[in-house]
């Protein structure tokens, strides 16, 4: 079956612009996570959804970052007024249920802010 997909695979934008990154989780997976990975680092947690609600958004760096999952499936990570420091690979992962240890990752969206 299909894995987690993310679009676009690459996004180049200018400082100050708004971007949206999309994640399609594995069908039926109720838990969805966003992580950010800078070059040479491990992924860092941003936000977790259980169903439609953001159960934990403690990893979002500031209020320029926001994520939604309106129907409990597809999620969109939104970044306002992008800064060069936002450049990273944004990874999405889904898991069949809350408390499951196995998270299935998508290939990521590489965001470059010029």
């Amino acid at each position: 079956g299909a894995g987690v997909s993310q679009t676009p695979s690459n996004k180049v934008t200018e400082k100050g612009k708004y971007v949206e990154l999309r994640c399609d989780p594995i069908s039926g997976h109720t838990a969805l996570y966003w992580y950010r990975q800078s070059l040479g680092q491990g992924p860092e947690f941003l936000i977790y959804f259980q169903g439609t609600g953001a159960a934990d958004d403690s990893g979002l760096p500031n209020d320029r970052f926001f994520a939604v999952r309106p129907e409990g499936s597809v999620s969109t990570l939104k970044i306002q007024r992008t800064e060069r420091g936002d450049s990273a690979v944004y990874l999405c992962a889904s898991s069949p249920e809350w408390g499951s240890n196995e998270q299935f990752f998508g290939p990521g969206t590489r965001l470059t802010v010029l």
Partner: protein
Amino acid sequence: GESVGLHLPTLSVQEGDNSIINCAYSNSASDYFIWYKQESGKGPQFIIDIRSNMDKRQGQRVTVLLNKTVKHLSLQIAATQPGDSAVYFCAEVNTGTASKLTFGTGTRLQVTL
């Protein structure tokens, strides 16, 4: 694709040899520890996990050892193959925090022929 781990510690092993990748973790309250493999341009891929009440777990060609006394985790890969070349991350999980993963510093494994 994105190049991962340009500044990471590197372990070079010959094909057929065994590899040992080490990781130090920080949270003694973590319930699980997981090893992930990440190839260039791809997301992390689950390899094996271990509960905090275990000290060893074996999978296919891989073994994870957990030493809670010194907060140390290791991944052993038997008969390393070229396809094992990747960046390896350990991650710790506290199920009380919705199973979000806290990743450690990765190690790049290079398999030479």
